[in-house]
């Protein structure tokens, strides 16, 4: 069991979302940065969809009431009993140990615990969705029980530096134009693709509101007959300021959407702080799917390497060093 000691900024339990209930009007929710959350789970030997603690900039303090193995991901500062540890790595904690985390960069960090967090499932998911009171943000005194796990051999796992996702540097976000592109003028589309947009403080898990040059609508205007909203949709209401729809977005809406962020770049968007700037770049759907497949192959290989099922080799080809995975240990 772990106990929440302090929540300097909002933290909540999330998994990969409430999939399959949008037709009942239920938002998907789930982690904002899927890559960091899944890697946290891999580091402690959990499956992809295990519930994790998602924390924000100011961090979180918790106390272990039993031995456990944990990992923190994100650009996080990690202290165990005030002793500095590394993120992207798994460690043992004993009963009584106190873990303090907070973020150096980005918006979201993740704590995964071996065996996962035991939590009541609502519509098959542990994801917190505050608006409908599906769970609530964590508060001091909350006690969370952990799932059963064999801890031996679970600590000391690490993500090779080369594979730590870089979600904190360049903020060029790739998008597929549409689905309501005819609601914008050619000039409006040019403005969208050639300007910098700043994430505003009104942003939350539902969507990131951007400030920047006004995007011009065509004579069709900003309104559409209400239709479904995908993850990463860039809605542009009548004021011409784009909103990127994220995990807690409503299932349907009536604003025209100029583009959709590709799945691979969603974590990069999520990790952008208010005040930081984004740029949009168009990409074809074929390329986007290829990128996603490439990412998933790497994720799978990393999970196998972390679980000692695969080996990770350093190889040198013409003086350049590469990392390679191999499927056999002998």
């Amino acid at each position, binding site marked *: 069991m772990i106990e929440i000691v302090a929540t300097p900024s909002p933290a909540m339990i999330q998994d990969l979302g409430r*999939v*399959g*209930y*949008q*037709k*009942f*009007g*239920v*938002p998907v929710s789930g982690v904002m940065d899927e890559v960091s959350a899944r890697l946290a789970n891999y580091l402690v030997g959990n499956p992809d969809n295990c519930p994790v603690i998602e924390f924000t900039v100011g961090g979180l303090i918790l106390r272990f009431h039993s031995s456990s193995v944990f990992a923190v991901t994100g650009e996080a500062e990690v202290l165990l009993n005030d002793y500095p540890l590394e993120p992207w790595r798994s460690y043992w904690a004993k009963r009584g140990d106190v873990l303090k985390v907070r973020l150096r960069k980005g918006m979201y960090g993740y704590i995964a615990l071996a065996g996962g967090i035991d939590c009541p499932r*609502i*519509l098959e998911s542990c994801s917190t969705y505050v*608006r*409908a*009171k*599906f769970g609530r943000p964590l508060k001091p005194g909350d006690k969370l029980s952990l799932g059963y796990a064999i801890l031996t051999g679970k600590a000391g796992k690490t993500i090779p530096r080369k594979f730590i996702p870089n979600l904190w540097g360049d903020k060029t976000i790739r*998008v*597929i134009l*549409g*689905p309501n592109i005819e609601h914008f003028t050619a000039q409006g589309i040019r403005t969208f693709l050639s300007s910098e947009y700043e994430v505003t403080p009104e942003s939350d898990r539902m969507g990131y509101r951007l400030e920047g040059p006004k995007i011009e609508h065509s004579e069709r205007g900003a309104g*559409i*007959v*209400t*239709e*479904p909203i*995908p*993850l*990463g*949709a860039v809605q542009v209401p009548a004021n011409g300021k784009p909103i990127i729809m994220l995990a807690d977005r*409503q*299932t*349907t*809406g009536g604003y025209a959407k100029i583009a*959709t*962020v*590709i*799945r691979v770049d969603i974590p990069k968007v999520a990790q952008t702080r208010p005040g930081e700037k984004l740029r949009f770049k168009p990409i074809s*759907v*074929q390329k*986007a*799917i290829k990128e*996603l*497949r490439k990412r*998933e192959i790497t994720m799978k290989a990393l999970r196998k390497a972390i679980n000692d099922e695969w080996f990770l080799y350093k190889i040198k080809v013409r003086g350049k060093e590469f990392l390679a995975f191999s499927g056999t240990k002998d």
Partner: protein
Amino acid sequence: MLTIRLLGDSGVLISFGEVIDEEINKRVHALAQAIEKDKPEWLVEVVPAYSSLAIYYDPTLITHEEVISYVSDLKFNVEDVKGREIEIPVAYGGEFGPDIEFVAEYNGLTIDDVIEIHSKPLYRVYFLGFLPGFAYLGGMDERIATPRLEKPRTKVPAGSVGIAGKQTGWYAIESPGGWRIIGRTPLRTFNPKKVPPSIALPGDYVKFVPIDEEEFWEIYKEEWEND
């Protein structure tokens, strides 16, 4: 006419027109049901709306082109979509419907007229969206159309039945809101512990049935007490 558009790299939007129309909405649900019945392994979920539906897919298993050709080949029959008729009891006015007097005055009617006009039609559930269990109903009589509150309430109780412009419906969960509240249903219209979680399903027809305060509390106890 059917048009297909991309929802990024993980979804396609099938649209049967850009209007709110019962026959078009039936086609939306017929196609949605046909896909769900078929359950292809790449399917993540189907989300119907007024005249369009989103098909979200797993791009590691299939490409958008393959999804589009799958949809183009899929046979579906509008006749297969048979919505149920469900009754929603509503206690109108008083503490349950603080805005009913305004709605009556605004439209030059009596409170009884408002109740009669509101509870007469069979409303079609076009789809559920926006918030959990929120039903987009069609078919409200324009004689009771009333603009939204200028300043939304911070808290509207679950089950509150209201009018916003030409639209009517109920708040499935407690939330802030600017609708003119004319009554409240004691039914738990959205319950995440049940599958399906919503009392009204897309394609159903809803009839509001006026009840008195006593009946309200009787049903309310049954619905909400075992929590």
